[in-house]
């Protein structure tokens, strides 16, 4: 019974992990059709920001929930102004440029922070579930993931800003004839996506040793999560996170974690083949 509880929590955690790390990429892809392959590095930068703040004595929650998103959001803004905005509509070129950006950021971070792993301590201690020792911090992550998903959904659905953004994404010409500059919308959206990535990175920083190459672990999973999810930002991310989270953890528990990862990747191929527009291209068509 306890074991079932453990498995269940691990699955929820995996879903939360995928959703949280993909959220930033989903916003940018779902709204602008931009694939930011430097997304993993934005997450990594969030982690390093948190680390630097922690070392400077700033409260860790403040660092990971406030400072990290702001800093990485700013970096995202700079990137958008210098690189991304020249490449709108050129999807493959954007992917290539952001791939270059990701290499660049890895190099820059390595030069600044060195290439050995650094650690941020977990602020929440573990607890016991029956006879198993569980990481309490994981619950916090699950909570943050849920809050982020709900927050983004609320903003897109119910605020004026969200409506303008969705309108500009649907039809840039109409949006500009209503007085909203689509370019500004794109800029803000990309910045928001970067900020979300920074938030994810900040929150995930205490989990493992932080390396300049940590981003690589996030990008592949985030990439397949949102592309499989399809165009709808929240519905897509959630549905694919759930599917991948469940499959990957169930297979992991049944065999080894590596097989679990491979199963998730193989499933991505199958899903993409069956639903070339992603899950929300087929189901939940008009959701956010």
């Amino acid at each position, binding site marked *: 019974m306890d074991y079932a509880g453990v498995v269940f929590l691990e699955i929820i955690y995996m879903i939360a992990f995928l959703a949280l790390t993909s959220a930033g990429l989903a916003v940018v892809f779902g709204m602008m059709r931009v694939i930011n392959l430097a997304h993993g590095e934005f997450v990594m930068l969030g982690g390093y920001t948190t680390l630097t703040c922690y070392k400077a004595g700033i409260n860790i929650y403040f660092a990971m929930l406030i400072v990290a998103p702001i800093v990485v959001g700013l970096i995202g803004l700079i990137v958008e102004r210098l690189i991304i905005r020249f490449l709108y509509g050129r999807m493959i070129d954007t992917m290539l440029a952001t791939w270059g950006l990701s290499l660049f950021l*890895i190099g820059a971070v390595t030069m600044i922070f060195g290439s050995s792993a650094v650690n941020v301590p977990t602020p929440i201690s573990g607890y016991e579930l029956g006879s198993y020792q569980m990481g309490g911090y994981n619950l916090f992550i699950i909570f943050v993931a849920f809050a982020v998903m709900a927050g983004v959904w609320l903003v897109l659905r119910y605020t004026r800003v969200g409506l303008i953004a969705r309108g500009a994404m649907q039809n840039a010409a109409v949006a500009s004839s209503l007085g909203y500059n689509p370019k500004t919308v794109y800029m803000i959206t990309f910045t928001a996506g970067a900020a979300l990535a920074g938030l994810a990175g900040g929150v995930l920083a205490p989990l493992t040793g932080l390396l300049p190459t940590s981003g690589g672990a996030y990008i592949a999973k985030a990439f397949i999560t949102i592309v499989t999810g399809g165009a709808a930002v929240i519905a897509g991310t959630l549905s694919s996170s759930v599917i991948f989270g469940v499959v990957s953890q169930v297979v992991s528990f049944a065999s080894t974690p590596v097989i679990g990862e491979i199963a998730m990747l193989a499933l991505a191929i199958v899903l993409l*083949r069956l639903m070339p527009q992603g899950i929300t291209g087929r189901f939940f068509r008009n959701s956010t």
Partner: protein
Amino acid sequence: MITAWRSIGGVRWGWFIAFALVLLLWPLAYDTHTATVLLIWALFALSLGFMWGYAGILSFGHSAYFGLGAYVYAISAVNIGESTIPLILAILIPALVAAVIGAMMFYGRISDVYMGVMTLVVSLIMFKFMNATAGDQYAIGDARLGGFNGMPGFPTLNVPGAPHISLWGVPTYYVCAVSLLLCYLLCRWILARSFGRVLLGIRENETRCELLGYNAPAVKTAIFIISAAMAGLSGCYFANWAEIVTPSVFSLQTSSDVIIWTMVGGVGTLIGPILGAMALGMVKLLLGQQTLINNFLVFGAILIVVVLAMPSGVIPAFQKWWGNRSRRSRAPSNGGRARRRLTVKPAERP
């Protein structure tokens, strides 16, 4: 009459012979070991550039076939002991895998972005799989796969039929050089036929070509197979050069390297990827020897700059400049920019 089709015309024999001569005489002036790996990378880039530039197929995980070629060679060389069949297998097996993956993607009408994901995921799967095969139980025949440590100590290339006469060293360089030249000629030959023009048509407007009776998915799958075969061959040579095969042959790094080389060299030409790979490969090796500037930083910056400033690559930009300079400005501005820009406006839903 033919304008954009100038890019797929026949071989410029003058340049080709000059290039071949340079390749053949190079070992006299330069360290053969380094030169060999540059040629191997050039072949790898040619395989991607052929597929990307003329059929519009961009694989984000081309390392999958490079790595397969390397591992297939190593595994079969250990088991067979002689290098001829392993080399053939290193070409055939990647081609077979490409046939399956390619057919799945092209007959499924997978579009560019999703194809990028799929190809990426395929290479990731191979990487993770190979990484996890440490331990004695993971072996194919006599060959232990070795996990993240890789497979050392397999027999390298020998004269076909004479296992005791090794081709190690300078002879391997010449094998690579001749292979590169032959593959280049093969690509040119394919492009010069009607098939090449059909390829360009499909790249421009696949639906229209289907409405003209051409079987687009079959054509694309065929090109994908040829590209994978060449990548596999280059992987096999790489295994011979490095004398060890590790899962890094499947890495994202390898896939991104070849994309950068091809892009910088010039998508839409055959010589562009070759020269791009050799030049940037050289830069990579040189950078690796110093610790002042980080490798990643430089290549990342190069890729960004090229995408923004010369999206068609250096060679086409040069061709354009050369063309303008010689006042051949009557030619349409389409000129050497044979690569298609994939335009999907942000407002367009799929």
